[in-house]
């Protein structure tokens, strides 16, 4: 399973970013192998509609779980349609911390509707 965590920078040590569409970086972690891939978000300075566009990026990378702070209405619709479950991480921890929280079942699902 591939989990995407929004982050301020690349790597699993980077702090989690609460914004979704305008997060500087998406860190994709394969929970089976532990491998991670960091992708710079090309949308941080985009004019609008960043949420749904970011969801397309997640879909392209095969993510089925998203960990972030919050998502907007259109992004929520796209996540739901794409079968991507979203969880809220609100704290100053790193990507690794958020992932550990998710694995332990401590994160609350973001309501998508």
């Amino acid at each position: 399973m591939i989990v995407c965590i929004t982050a301020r920078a690349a790597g699993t040590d980077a702090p989690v970013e609460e914004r979704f569409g305008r997060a500087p970086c998406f860190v994709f972690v394969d929970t089976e192998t532990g491998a991670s891939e960091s992708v710079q978000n090309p949308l941080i300075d985009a004019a609008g509609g960043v949420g749904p566009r970011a969801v397309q990026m997640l879909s392209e990378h095969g993510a089925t779980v998203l960990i972030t702070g919050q998502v907007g209405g259109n992004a929520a619709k796209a996540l739901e349609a794409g079968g991507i479950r979203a969880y809220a991480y609100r704290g100053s921890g790193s990507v690794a911390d958020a992932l550990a929280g998710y694995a332990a079942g401590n994160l609350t699902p973001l309501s998508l509707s």
Partner: protein
Amino acid sequence: MKIAIASGKGGTGKSTVAANLACVLSCTRDVVLVDCDVEEPNLHLFFPAAAVDVPVTTPVPAINLDRCTFCGECGKFCRFGALTVLKDRVLVFPELCHSCGGCALVCPQGAVREIPRTVGRVACSRPIPRLTLVSGVLNEGEVQAPAVIRAAKMLAEGHPLAIYDASPGIACPVIETLEGSDACVLVTESTPFGLHDLSLAAEVVEKIGIPAGVVINRSDGEDAPTMEFCRERDLPVLMTIPFSREIAAVQNRGGLICRDLPGWEERFAGLFERIPGVRP
């Protein structure tokens, strides 16, 4: 002749000037007044009358799933996020679409078709003899103000004299309104904020290259900085409307000062003749 009434910001009395000017002109000739402030049209409040509505549509994409390979090109192209390509479907967010048509162009499969979507309407009425009112009304939550403005201007096309009431500010709806105008009247107030907004609006008008003049509204008599600015920029001051209880009272009940207060009919007629480029 097409005259746009604009202002750097809202609440300066732009609609007042447009409504009074149109009303006065309709005594002597045919005039069409176009409310281009489509997010908050208010000219119909001055001129209540039954209107005929024409819907305004813009094309938005519809995806033919028999052809679509979910390659993602359209979603990557759309800079407004109106398309999200997932593994087995394409989501369309029509309210984000700006109808640029790009997704249909980039689709390698020819899977994008365009379907019309209603984003607003244009209301046409004939409130007094020789005055036609055309009001653009953008539906709530829609982003396509320019499409509604274009439709409103199109319905007014062909009239010998049109007055466009622009929306406040200097964003794209204002540019869309100014486009094709022969002259522009900038309405301002004699406050420091008023002057700041006037200078922004004057810059836009100058860039588009339309001759312009200024109406100072709600003047408290301290107009020296505004006059100075107008002199520097070669903008004639066409009219000054003083701040007065009497005028405020007429405005507050939605009245027209050219109708309700003596002397103002002549003043607005004079304003028209002073607008740069007008051949009365």
